[in-house]
């Protein structure tokens, strides 16, 4: 879309509209800079690789501090 952002890590907005956290089934926040989808309810951050969200608990970063 926009030619200056890395095309590799931008997620299709239509996909973002429908995705939920696979653990909590709660909503997700898109952190564009970190290239992560954040589930506040499950305290997990799902990575995005090659524009594809990796919606696997085992691959997610834990947010509990």
């Amino acid at each position, binding site marked *: 879309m926009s030619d200056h952002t890395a095309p590799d890590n931008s997620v*299709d907005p*239509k*996909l973002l509209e*429908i*995705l*939920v*956290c*696979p*653990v909590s*089934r709660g909503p997700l926040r898109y952190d564009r800079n970190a290239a992560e989808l954040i589930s506040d309810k499950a305290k997990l951050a799902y990575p995005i*690789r*090659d*524009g*594809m*969200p*990796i*919606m*696997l*608990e*085992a*691959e997610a970063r834990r947010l509990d501090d």
Partner: protein
Amino acid sequence: MTNTDTQKASFGFQDVPAGEKAGMVRAVFDSVADNYDVMNDAMSAGIHRVWKSVLLDRLNPQPGQRLIDVAGGTGDIAIGFLKRAAARPLRGRAEASAVVCDINHAMMKAGKSRDDAKPFASVLTRTCGDAQNLPFPDCSFDVYTIGFGIRNVTDMDAALKEAWRVLKPGGRFTCLEFSRPITEGFSQVYDAYSFNVIPWLGEMIAKDRDSYQYLVESIRRFPPQGAFKMRIEDAGFSRVSYENLSGGIAALHTGWKTGV
């Protein structure tokens, strides 16, 4: 969670701790991703294309439908679905759309560079996800497909329940999977071929005999047509039926989510 270490799951002919199966299957598909389409053609003499085409015939894709193609890999079924839907008049309906959802990132990445996916860039999306815990709300899709994927899932019954959950009421479940040859004579020929020729093809084409040995063994561990039909019914689907393809080498199971 407490049972993960003691429960067993099949991995080819071995039994492995249930918690390890997903990682082992991912390793197989990471290993075969780049050669997967070529290998499928070589192993089945191109027949997997005919089977997928039969699946699409039965689905009769329409504009406006939203598909989830689980274990969709490089996107054969999703792209075929979108092609067929696009060939039909819109009549005020939106374009059909499809999500490929696969546990393996490498397979989907390989699919992104397919030329035949390009016309559908605006309606085809891809996400990594586990068939047992799909990252979608209830009642999201009109059609669920899983082609040569369900036997690789650790807990098949959990995956079937997830399929039911994400389908809209009136939505359709379709599963294409290797099955059991329906005559004894044919079964013997097929056994000889699959245990001798396929691992050898894997070695020749993909330099990976072990992964293809796993594929052959996992096919034998999968329940036969009638038993699998009952598992689909147990997950809540109605009017479940199956159709044998190529004498039962593969079977196409289908069911409906009704009565919600």
